[in-house]
């Protein structure tokens, strides 16, 4: 075990559960909504930039980053670029937002103000993820 593994528990990545708004539909027509996203590393963000597809189309970076950090989608444990490419646009936007929240803000809650009473409260944007209350 390297020293950095002792610091981070690299064998046990920090993962956040989520529920997709629509869900990934696999080739058999089954819908997968519950998933896990792990925290990103410097390697996750540096490595895709050398990919020829990203040089041709910068938007493809999102597909590569999500395929590296989404570790499970329902029964699908091998999330590939093909899986991410076949997500609904709303699910892709949801995962992009979740990625930014957990890696920049370190939490999945968003501050929301009630339009009626202007009370400020927190909403977990990851949805009713398993194990969460």
């Amino acid at each position, binding site marked *: 075990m390297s*020293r950095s593994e002792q*610091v981070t528990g690299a064998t046990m990545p920090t993962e956040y559960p989520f529920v997709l708004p629509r869900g990934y539909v696999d080739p058999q027509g089954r819908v997968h909504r519950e998933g896990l996203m792990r*925290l990103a*590393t*410097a390697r996750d*963000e*540096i490595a895709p930039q050398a990919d020829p597809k990203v040089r041709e189309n910068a938007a493809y*970076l999102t597909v590569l980053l999500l395929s590296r950090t989404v570790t499970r989608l329902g029964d699908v444990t091998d999330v590939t670029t093909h899986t991410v490419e076949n997500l609904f646009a709303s699910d892709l936007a949801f995962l*992009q937002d979740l990625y930014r929240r957990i890696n920049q803000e370190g939490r999945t809650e968003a501050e929301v103000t009630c339009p009626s009473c202007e009370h400020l409260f927190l909403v977990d944007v990851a949805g009713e993820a398993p194990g969460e209350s």
Partner: protein
Amino acid sequence: MLTYTADRLWEEVVYVAYYLHWSADSVLDLEHPARQRVIEEIGRINKRISAPDDGPDDD
């Protein structure tokens, strides 16, 4: 969707590798919050070394 620029990431990776003598490979695999924490701690140590009379840094 990147959270950091590549230049900033390399700067941070080399900073940690230089001060702690870890391989760049192992620093590349630190999760963002862990890498940030390590950088903060190195900064605290350097501050203490450069101003030893100020006593322990409590912040």
